[in-house]
């Protein structure tokens, strides 16, 4: 028989405001096995914890029930408390009477009754608790960063700086991400390349950092401290170690009509290409969809002229398997497709462009060498209309693929575009249609006001209803000015759409591989929005940059460093304490049917042929399951699959759960 102590927390008024905590403590006193029951204002406080410790000693408690907040909040706290008083930490159970009771009820009488029932269920469970001893597992002192944009780069540099090895997996031929395509960056207007490329070079030169460019994560297994990751190095048909990046092949390649993705298809590249001058690694890649040699075996010019002998048309995809202790996700974002936004004539007119395309048109390395020229005729545009919130802040059931969230960066970059245009080309009229201008952030609002007040950008509160391409090449922009309460018609030369941003398409399958959770918009969710903002709820998985939500560069970099700090904190440890609440199989009951192994997401279950003593002095060889406790994460999938009930979870046994249900139904 257990000797159980019950501790009911007021949590200030959080619980006591809706639950009669005194009545709860009093009622639970009468439960079987309860030898002590009390309430206190803040059980998690120093004084509250001492109360528990003293009671354990004084009353020789063998089990503790704390009626308080969610176990996610303070289960670990109270387990430590019990441990310091000499009790096995797994003899503590939490009855959640805050999130699952006081916060969701208004009627004191009913909430009190429910709190008593929840306490009763926890007491019923403690009766069946057994002391558990946690094992340990080693930590592989190496981190994986998935995505090589500014977020991934910063995280990798910080982890490497702390002395740990870190690998970056980037699916494009070069690291750098979206930031490489930007011209100037708000609010300081320093050039993106000037601040990014040194970091890219640092990554390449850092001995601790290994870059897997043009590579993708193929599969992930294992668990925190001990992930096993398969990385697919896609065939680039160029030997990375031999290529010097001289670029001769890209000049000589006869296939020059490939849309250049770096300039968003606004000019062409060759079939063998280096994405841009500062690419890291600076090696050529052959585009197999356009290379004549790879498509029909006719050409081979690049191999002939390459003095380094780096071209290898027979190169195959290669799978590399590596072990990691921590994984940081930095898969970034993309602008949404505007194909369905017919009202803005994006698909009909070349002169309706996205903001990222505008970025390329003003960049010295862009298709126009930095001159702002209309894509259709190469003329200088005199009237430019910027449209904000294209696909952002839409209703949840938007049919065009619009997003319900604010993309956060558009107000600022549009202010930047407008300001820079006015500065360089004062003869240009610039209009910005906005729903709201949102510029919180250090020096952000000042920046926007400078655009509006000093640079004479026409900010118009209202939305553009329609963009109509005219016969003379102009674009008739119809919009409403909500402040002046009038309809506007502007004859524009160029229309720039601030497209919403969305997580990269690779994020969803990656989340499945990592068993990391996502929200409905496919942004990775954090373990706690305020207290654990850079960790995924899945242990050992950290979040860096826009994969977690829309972010500008300063915010991305600070989050990247935060994620790195969290990963370093993990890698510093030599060993992790395992969760002792793992599955185990009752060999006498096990049929060896393999259903548990089939459903185990961690590959923790294996089988062995074992000899068993049977009646009448006979023996039988039977196939039985055994669980590797270091790999098992205690999810319990096997216990519900097992037809004979041979699989059970320590700390959450079928009997314990049934006892809780029975106590609730009593």
């Amino acid at each position, binding site marked *: 028989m257990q000797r159980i102590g019950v501790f009911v927390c007021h949590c200030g008024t959080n619980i006591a405001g809706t639950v009669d905590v005194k009545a709860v403590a009093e009622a639970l006193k009468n439960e079987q096995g309860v030898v002590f029951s009390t309430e206190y204002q803040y059980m998690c406080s120093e004084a509250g914890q001492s109360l528990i410790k003293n009671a354990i000693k004084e009353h020789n408690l063998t089990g503790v029930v704390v009626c308080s907040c969610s176990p996610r909040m303070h289960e670990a706290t109270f387990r430590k408390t019990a441990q310091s008083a000499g009790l096995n930490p797994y003899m503590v159970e939490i009855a959640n009477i805050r999130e699952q009771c006081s916060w969701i009820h208004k009627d004191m009488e009913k909430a009190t009754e429910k709190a008593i029932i929840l306490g009763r269920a926890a007491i019923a469970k403690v009766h069946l608790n057994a002391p558990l001893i946690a094992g340990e597992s080693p930590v592989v002192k190496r981190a994986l960063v998935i995505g090589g944009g500014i977020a991934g780069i910063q995280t990798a540099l910080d982890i490497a700086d702390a002395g740990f090895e870190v690998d970056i997996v980037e699916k494009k031929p070069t690291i750098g991400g979206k930031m490489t395509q930007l011209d100037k960056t708000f609010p300081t207007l320093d050039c993106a390349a000037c601040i990014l490329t040194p970091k890219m070079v640092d990554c390449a030169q850092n001995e601790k950092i290994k870059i897997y460019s043009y590579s993708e994560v193929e599969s992930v297994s294992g668990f925190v401290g001990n992930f096993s990751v398969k990385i697919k190095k896609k065939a680039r048909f160029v030997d990375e170690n031999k290529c010097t990046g001289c670029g001769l092949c890209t000049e000589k390649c006869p296939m020059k009509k490939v849309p250049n993705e770096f300039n968003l298809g606004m000019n062409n590249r060759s079939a063998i290409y280096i994405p841009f001058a500062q690419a890291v690694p600076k090696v050529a890649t052959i585009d197999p969809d356009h290379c004549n040699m790879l498509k029909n075996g006719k050409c081979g010019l690049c191999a002939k002229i390459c003095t380094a002998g780096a071209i290898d048309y027979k190169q195959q995809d290669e799978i590399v398997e590596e072990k990691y202790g921590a994984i940081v996700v930095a898969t970034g974002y993309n602008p949404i497709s505007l194909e369905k936004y017919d009202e803005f004539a994006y698909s009909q007119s070349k002169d309706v462009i996205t903001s990222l395309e505008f970025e390329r048109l003003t960049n010295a390395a862009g298709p126009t060498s930095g001159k702002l020229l209309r894509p259709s005729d190469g003329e200088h545009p005199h009237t430019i209309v910027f449209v904000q919130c294209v696909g952002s802040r839409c209703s949840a059931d938007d049919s065009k693929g619009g997003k319900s969230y604010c993309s956060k960066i558009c107000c600022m970059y549009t202010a930047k575009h407008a300001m820079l245009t006015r500065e360089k080309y004062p003869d240009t009229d610039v209009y910005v249609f906005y729903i709201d201008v949102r510029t919180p952030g250090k020096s952000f609002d000042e920046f926007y006001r400078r655009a509006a007040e000093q640079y004479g950008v026409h900010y118009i509160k209202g939305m553009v209803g329609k963009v109509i391409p005219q016969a003379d090449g102009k674009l008739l922009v119809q919009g409403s000015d909500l402040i002046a309460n009038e309809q506007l018609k502007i004859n524009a030369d160029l229309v720039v759409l601030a497209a919403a941003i969305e997580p990269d398409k690779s994020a969803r399958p990656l989340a499945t591989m990592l068993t990391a959770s996502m929200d409905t918009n496919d942004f990775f969710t954090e373990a706690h929005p305020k207290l654990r903002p850079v960790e995924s709820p899945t242990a050992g998985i950290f979040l860096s940059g826009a994969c977690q939500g829309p972010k500008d560069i300063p915010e991305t970099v600070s989050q990247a460093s935060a994620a790195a700090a969290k990963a370093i904190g993990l890698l510093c440890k030599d060993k992790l304490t395992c969760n002792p609440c793992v599955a185990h199989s009752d060999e006498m009951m096990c049929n060896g049917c393999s259903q548990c192994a089939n459903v185990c997401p961690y590959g923790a279950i294996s089988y062995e042929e074992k000899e068993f003593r049977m009646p009448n002095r006979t023996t039988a060889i039977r196939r039985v399951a055994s669980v590797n406790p270091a790999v098992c994460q205690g999810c319990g999938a096997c216990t519900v*699959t097992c037809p004979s009930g041979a699989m059970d979870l320590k700390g959450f046994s*079928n009997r314990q759960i049934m006892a809780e249900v029975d106590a609730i139904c009593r």
Partner: protein
Amino acid sequence: MQSRMIERAKQLLADGTVNRVIGWKKGEFAYDITPAVFESAEEIDKDFVYDDFCGHNLSKYLIKESRKEGKLLAFLKPCDTYSFNQLIKEHRIIRENVYIIGIACDGKADAEKIKAKGISGITGISSDDDTFTVKTIYDDEKISKSEVLEERCTVCKSRKHAVYDELIGDEGEVNENSGRFDMVTKLENMTADERYTFWRNELSKCIRCNACRNVCPACSCENCVFDNPNSGIAQKSAATSFEENMFHIIRAFHVAGRCTDCGECSRVCPQNIPLHLLNRKFIKDINELYGEYQAGVEDEGRTPLTSYTKDDCEPSIVNERGCK
């Protein structure tokens, strides 16, 4: 058919390929057949029988028999081979120790249905294309097969063996349009109350003889939860009449995704409860939610309920379907 089987069984025993044969033998009455293991030609000559009353699925017996010394000859009808494969998949039968002769089957007779027609004193049965000839101590009676076939045979899902080492008789085809889910559809179209009443009527007949569990090839646990004192439900007297019904519902859940729809549960039920309908409901649901799946077609790989894909339906489907 029977003579060919006996001849071949004796051959295989004589040449040492197998040391035992599992088949059927007559009981007190002609329709009172039981599965039996024969160890010699003499025993076979004496008792071995195969006729239209031999409906028993022999696969489950192979769990124990295949673990004994030496190889065993098993005669399996098409539907029995699905159970066999499923048990191989679950590592319950040692394949190397079994020699399978697949035997053709045109559907088995339901002695209860025959007796219900007022025929008594049955001493034997034979059949041709669509009639059974029932021998009695009085006269031979000819009955159209469709009138007295076992329920499962009227909606036979396959006359093709899923596995065999050799065949006796002609191999048939898988029947895609067996209509075996018609009754399930009918139940689905009832209101929840009507369905509840239907099942309460049926399940209240249960006397908990455990025959359905004991005969079921999917119920092959070393130690059934209903017999395990640690499970908390073993040997428990029913607190309410509904609790008793839970036995069948739990059993249906336990065999879901593994049940091959062999129909043994309903065949052996002394109370004539249509237990197969519970299993068929699961099979139909699996087909609709995860794509067509027949347990026992393969002897390895995952089943829809023990694998996860990103396209799997969300649990909320239960509500959506429930609202129908």
